[in-house]
């Protein structure tokens, strides 16, 4: 009986914790939305965060995007052998990068870096009473700390995704020429053949949503940090894990909705 009771207690506590996280993140998101009218007051902080998130992530995005495009080209060429004309190599690399690989992989690598950095910074501020000090100066930490970070993430993720898309396609094109022997003109012709602006827009909608998730998870976990250095470490880990999981789950639902919308528009 005690084992059964412990099991129920553990399951109950896990459900309670999950509901607390869902409730906490929802409240934080609503709090930021309610304060958006005050965004001009924190334009300096928002700009600094955009620099930190955007410029700081460029080296990571360059390496990730170039190699993702290269792998996409090599794998597609391998699967096309003897079945599909190589002119479609550009089509496949372009589609997969713009719709899926660009937004998702950029979000995962940037999310790891940015959500960890946000959670660690805010977590340290929390455990060293800097957030209490801010409250005491009658400065709203949600407006001054959370909103600039979340807005910067929502703006910069689509920018980084466009950059990553271009680099990944470039990487695919170079590998197609060097390793597979597909000329640049053939590759770009295939790329242009089925290029739709709607695909780019859907990729950017995904990127903006992932940006929101990254900022929210970083800020939420940072703000609920307790217990010194160990607590900051725990919050950082939770921010990275939760943002990655949320990105992957949200990706499925967004893909379902966005593809349906694009397909519907394409058939009417």
């Amino acid at each position, binding site marked *: 009986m005690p084992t059964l009771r412990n099991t129920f207690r553990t399951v109950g506590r896990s459900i309670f914790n999950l509901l607390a996280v869902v409730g906490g993140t929802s409240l934080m998101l609503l709090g930021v939305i309610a304060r958006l009218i005050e965004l001009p007051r924190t334009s300096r902080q928002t700009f600094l965060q955009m620099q930190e998130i955007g410029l700081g992530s460029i080296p990571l995005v360059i390496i990730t995007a170039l190699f993702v495009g290269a792998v996409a080209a090599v794998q597609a060429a391998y699967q096309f052998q003897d079945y599909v004309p190589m002119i479609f190599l550009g089509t496949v690399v372009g589609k997969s990068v713009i719709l899926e690989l660009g937004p998702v992989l950029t979000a995962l690598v940037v999310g790891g870096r940015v959500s960890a950095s946000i959670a660690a910074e805010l977590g340290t501020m929390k455990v060293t009473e800097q957030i209490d*000090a801010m409250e005491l100066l009658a400065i709203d930490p949600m407006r001054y700390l959370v909103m600039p970070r979340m807005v910067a993430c929502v703006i910069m993720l689509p920018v980084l995704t466009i950059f990553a898309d271009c680099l990944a396609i470039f990487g695919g094109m170079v590998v197609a020429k060097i390793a597979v022997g597909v000329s640049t003109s053939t590759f770009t012709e295939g790329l242009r053949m089925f290029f739709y602006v709607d695909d780019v827009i859907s990729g950017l909608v995904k990127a903006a949503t992932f940006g929101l998730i990254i900022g929210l998870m970083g800020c939420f976990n940072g703000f609920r940090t307790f217990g010194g250095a160990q607590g900051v470490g725990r919050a950082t880990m939770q921010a990275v894990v939760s943002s990655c999981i949320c990105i992957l789950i949200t990706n499925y639902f967004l893909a379902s909705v966005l593809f349906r919308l694009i397909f519907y528009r394409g058939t009417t």
Partner: protein
Amino acid sequence: MLRLECKNVWKQFDDKRVLQGVNLTIEPGETVVIIGQSGTGKSVLLKHIVGLLSPDRGAVLVDNVNVAKLSRKKLFELRMRFGMVFQSAALFDSLTVAENVGLAIREHTEKTDEEIAQICDEKLRMVGLEGVSSKVPAELSGGMKKRVGFARAIAMNPECVLYDEPTTGLDPIMSDVINNLIVKLSSELKITSVVVTHDLASAYKVGHRIAMLHDGVVIFQGTPDEIRETDHPLVRQFIEGRAEGPIMMGSGQ
């Protein structure tokens, strides 16, 4: 100047009862020192005064207004009348000394950069710090950080300043510098002050009145002379710093 009143304040964290009916009144312009063992809820009581924590039972009144019942907007208006010096200084790591001191002025007033810089220099001069405006907190010593914390706390000319262990971790000379600052700010600016400390030399020097918190209640309050002469066994053990006595080791933890 503000009048502060804690009326039967109770606070519990999980299973631990920290405050168990604290009653304490601080008159306008008065400096009250709260002493007691670590973990008896001195800092928790300070956080109740400025609404960073809300009591489970009872009320904290500032000028007869219940702090816990205020809307967030009204609470922020009230907090602009307070300053607080934190035990760890709690300076914003990413900002320079001048930005730390001037942050509240920049956020709440329409003053120009030059005016803000002038006020920051004046406040830093008051705490004996000059030429450090452009430094970041990581470049400062512990005593300097505390003094920058002082300057930040008084930047908006508050009516009440709360000090959370202002001399902890400082050498005796720097502790005395800090004590002098508290006395100077209290007498020059005529502000209400609440000082939480373990440091009895500091308590005797800065306090008009000293209150001792034990097991979540105020067990004694009086002037520094009264506390020196009291025969209350718990107070005597604490001020004499004896391990033997009615206060059990770890009872306050």
